[in-house]
């Protein structure tokens, strides 16, 4: 397997890890909580899309749009109802709360859709491109994966940097008390942050379900949370750019490791990567320094 192929493959999967990492970073920045239920939330939205597409014959795009909308709703509801009460309290409360939510979502999904592995269609053809005689480890579907995540990243960037609602959201995340003094409805901004994050996660869920086998069951997305978390930590939990870079780097690293070491043990690689990063540079590649000064 040539390095180019490995890199291409890595970028495709890395984009998905980047999307999950981005979702985690958005939530961390606004509410200082690691959303351990992220994998569960995107699992549910993907299953909702699955119901429409595989059981009711809707086309792929309807499924995707519904998944994104479902993500917005789930994110908003979870923040407002479950997370808001523990937002100021000890971090351990939020950890246990999000874990409880994960269990609930997995159990609930198992009740509704069963625990078997289902299949989800890809967006486009999965036949690899050919350049001359060479086959690239890249298909139209992979291209769609990379492009859709890139589009989302750009849209989020524009939202946060160029709109007044984005300004309000950033102010709410950086200095909630000052923002309130300036008339920003901080609570609503936090809810919006979670809603957007869940929608980004929903995209990642649909993408990976159609791209990799064995994901489509209630427990299948657990690993994705770890990949996203590791990517976010690599980039710096505070940094959206870091999340994207971290995800891409991880995707490429996995591609090489899968090729030269072994397949099937990606979660072990994630564990090793995470440990190394936390030992060597815990604040990540792109984080700003710890304290905020005023």
């Amino acid at each position: 397997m040539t390095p180019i192929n490995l890199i291409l493959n890595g970028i495709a999967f890395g984009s998905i890890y980047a999307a999950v990492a981005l979702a985690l970073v958005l939530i961390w920045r606004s509410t200082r909580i690691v959303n351990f239920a992220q994998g569960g939330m995107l699992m549910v939205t993907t299953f909702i899309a699955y119901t429409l597409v595989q059981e009711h014959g809707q086309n792929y795009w309807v499924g995707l749009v519904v998944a994104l909308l479902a993500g917005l709703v789930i994110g908003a509801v979870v923040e407002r109802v479950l997370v808001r009460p523990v937002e100021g309290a000890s971090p351990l409360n939020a950890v246990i709360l999000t874990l409880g939510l994960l269990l609930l979502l997995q159990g609930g999904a198992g009740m509704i859709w069963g625990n078997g592995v289902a299949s989800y269609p890809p967006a486009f053809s999965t036949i690899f491109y050919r350049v001359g005689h060479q086959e690239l480890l890249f298909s139209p579907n992979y291209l769609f994966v990379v492009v859709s995540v890139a589009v989302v990243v750009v849209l989020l960037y524009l939202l946060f940097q160029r709109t007044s609602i984005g300004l309000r959201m950033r102010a709410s995340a950086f200095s909630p008390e000052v923002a309130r003094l300036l008339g920003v409805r901080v609570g609503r901004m936090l809810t919006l942050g979670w809603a957007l994050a869940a929608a980004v996660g929903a995209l990642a869920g649909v993408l990976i379900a159609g791209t990799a086998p064995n994901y489509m069951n209630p427990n299948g997305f657990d690993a994705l949370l770890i990949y996203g978390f590791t990517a976010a930590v690599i980039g710096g939990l505070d940094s959206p750019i870091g999340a994207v870079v971290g995800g891409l780097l991880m995707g490429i690293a996995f591609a090489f490791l899968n090729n030269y070491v072994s397949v099937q043990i990606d979660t072990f690689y994630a564990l090793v990567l995470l440990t190394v990063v936390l030992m060597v540079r815990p604040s990540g590649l792109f984080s700003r320094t710890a304290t905020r000064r005023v």
Partner: protein
Amino acid sequence: MPGVLGRSTLLRHVLFAVIGGAALFLLTHELGEFRNSQLANIAYIACATAGLTVLTGLSGQVSIGHGAFMFIGAYTAALFLKHDLAERLLQHSGNANFGLIIVLLAAVLVCALVGGVVGVAAARLRGPYLAGITLALAIGIPVLPLWSKLEGPLGGHAGLPVNAPAPPTSVDYVRFQAWICCLSAVIVIFLLANLSRSRVGRAFRAVRDDEISASLAGLSVARVQVLAFVVSAACAGLSGGLFAIVAGSVGPASFPLSLSFYLLAAIVFGGLGSLAGAVYGAVLITLLPNWSTDIANSLSLSMRVQNNLPLVILGAALIVAMLVFPSGVQGLLRRGWGTVARRAT
């Protein structure tokens, strides 16, 4: 290691241990096979939850990854038995039960070692970072047998069979397993209770409550935290070893992520604060699948719903617990293990 322990406390613990052990021994003779195997289950889970409550409740470090330590303990035991390492160590094929002790001890020591390594890595981490790395542990370690290089020795997907030594003749097999597990649980709880009351236990509490004060008072925060990991990992290792013997085989599928969640849920509900709570929690998560099956049957619910009912119940209960308890985790901690009385300076 326990340090200075009041003689009356030690005596009281010994008394409880002896009485508890005797009571359990009698109990195993009263119960039938099914109940005895449940008892064995509860007992080895209690070893793990007791260790976890020391780590999370007493020492304040959350771990969602103890399933990984159980995995390591179970596979260590399985490998020892597979290669007859115990016999070779003892250098005579004498009493098979000594062999059993060696096997379990191996599981404990290997896990203690790994726990130390993890503890060193984790000592610098706080809150969600610590939770995240232990979560990665829970998912990342049990896939190791799938590594192509390790598939041979570790049995890949199918796992390894466990050839537990036969019990002394005329003893019912399941009763024997229940008895070993109960004995182990009693010993673990006895040791941990002593630990908790000792100088080491006070050090754990001090670091949990206020790291800065603790280090100003001369405690090495990192060393204390690593020690807590070592102790709790050792307990989980013992639990894994016992599991291997009771289950008769070990494989990656026996150690899913939900196992680690169940352990954490057990101590949250048992009361993050005490060893007794760890036991209640062990009872809870062991019997919950049975209870929910009964509920499901009486309501004629489908297989799907039945299988997932424990998950839904636990998840909902954890959420409700965090929302309803105003002081959440801190409140549970204070009620259980208590805080260290601050000395006036």
